[in-house]
């Protein structure tokens, strides 16, 4: 039986942020508790090990950015770019996130228990995002792969220019963006949502969600446009 690792506490009221992040980058295992973040930027950024970090208080920009393998939990709110470019592992916050949460995430899971602001999951590339509340306008803009699950409502222009990401919304969608459309919710999609709700520890009936995705008109070449293309090439 292995001994549980002691929890290392880092108080940002006393310790410079760079020291915290250096400690987290050097750690290969263990648990960390971060106190007094006071809205600092780049808290727990660039983790690449199976460690667990708990942040007590609200954080600034790019918290848990470029995250891999481990878990980060924020008991508070987060500003722009929470878990931006997450590759794997889990990032979870108890409060709300402002703009561009989970932007460009390639893998892993981002859980926002409150609301997410504008452009949640912009250019998503394979990560999963579960939002307990609402998401703001232009969420999943140009999202290429992955899943965005929203238990509340979605703001204007959801999924504008989306590629092959799936967007699941339980509540109202103010409007869909260019080339976004409602799609059939088939059994496989219900299973996906059920799995993500379980992973996020959120209670909802997956059947209540609607699925949105790409109408695939924007990024496919249209034979009807051939004349314009020939004319363009001829100059």
């Amino acid at each position: 039986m292995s001994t549980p690792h002691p929890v290392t506490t880092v108080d940002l009221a006393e310790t410079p942020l760079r020291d915290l992040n250096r400690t987290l980058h050097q750690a290969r295992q263990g648990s960390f508790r971060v106190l007094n973040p006071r809205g600092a930027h780049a808290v727990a950024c660039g983790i690449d090990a199976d460690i667990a970090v708990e942040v007590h208080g609200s954080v600034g920009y790019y918290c848990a950015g470029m995250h891999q393998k481990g878990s980060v939990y924020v008991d508070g709110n987060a500003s722009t770019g929470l878990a931006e470019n997450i590759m794997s592992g889990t990032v979870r916050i108890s409060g709300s996130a402002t703009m561009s949460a989970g932007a460009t995430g390639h893998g892993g899971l981002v859980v926002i228990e409150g609301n997410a602001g504008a452009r949640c999951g912009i250019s998503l590339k394979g990560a999963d995002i579960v939002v307990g509340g609402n998401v703001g306008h232009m969420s999943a803009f140009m999202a290429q792969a992955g899943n965005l699950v929203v238990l509340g409502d979605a703001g204007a222009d959801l999924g504008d220019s989306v590629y092959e990401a799936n967007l699941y919304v339980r509540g109202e969608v103010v409007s869909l963006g260019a080339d976004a459309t409602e799609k059939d919710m088939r059994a496989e999609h219900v299973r996906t949502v059920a799995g993500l709700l379980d992973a996020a520890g959120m209670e909802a009936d997956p059947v209540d969600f609607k699925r949105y995705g790409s109408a695939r008109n924007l990024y496919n070449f249209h034979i009807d446009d051939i004349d314009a293309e020939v004319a363009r090439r001829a100059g």
Partner: protein
Amino acid sequence: MCGIVGLFLKTERFQPRLGELTASMLHEMRDRGPDSAGFAVYDQGRAGTTRITVLAEGQRPDWSRTGADLENVLEAEVSVRPIRDHAVLETAGDGSRARQWLIDNSPELDVLSYGTQIEIYKAVGDPDLVAINYDLRSRSGTHALAHTRMATESAVTTNGSHPFATGADTCLVHNGSLSNYNWLRTRLERQGEMFQTENDSEVAAGYLAWRLREGDSLKQALERALLALDGFFTFAIGIEDGFAILRDPIACKPAIVAETDDWVAMSSEYRAITHLPDSGHATVWEPAPGVIYTWTRAA
């Protein structure tokens, strides 16, 4: 970039500490705008007395001469309170007239504000030094706005610094950039607005001043501004007895709001709010795009 902060005190509790709290918020926004800074402070003022804040950048002009000239124009007494290269002129005379006369006749001066409650200070350089040099911390009052500037649309000069005020007790700080401001400035000049800089944000301040003068409420003026102004903006706006926040419909420029029973604060970033009393228990939210938020002090 640019950093903006606004603090509106809903009760009297923290009024003696307005300047100190605003300075701590401004300090946190230093990284967002190291080029220059400015602040506006509103206090109760004295009934029937208009204050005009003027700037003679880097100079120590003969303010008594300015005061005497103004006394002749306004046919009212003018007292002068110099603060480094700024001065606050106090008079029972017509503040709007004073502003216009100073702009027309004292090209070496910038008129930063006029009104019964507002004073504005601004300077190039480290925002903390600006706060120290113009003694922000010791100020009491009801509400304040401050700005740290990373110049984009015009040069790093004091008169390109925020807040901007063209109308009585009305001022604005802006993060973003407007694209139709030259066109709008020409139109506003035809309506009698007077501008002193080439700055886009001054035009936004002028637009609001014009609408308020035309009888709009602050909310009505901002509803029109949403249609009239083209560009990116997060605004914090102060009037005599009110405070407002507005973001453009795309909302690229950040904003966060926190509110308690005693105060409402807005800032570009949350960290500016963490120093405020009881901020841990404040209601915190991101203002929605294109939505007008206003607060008014009960009379």
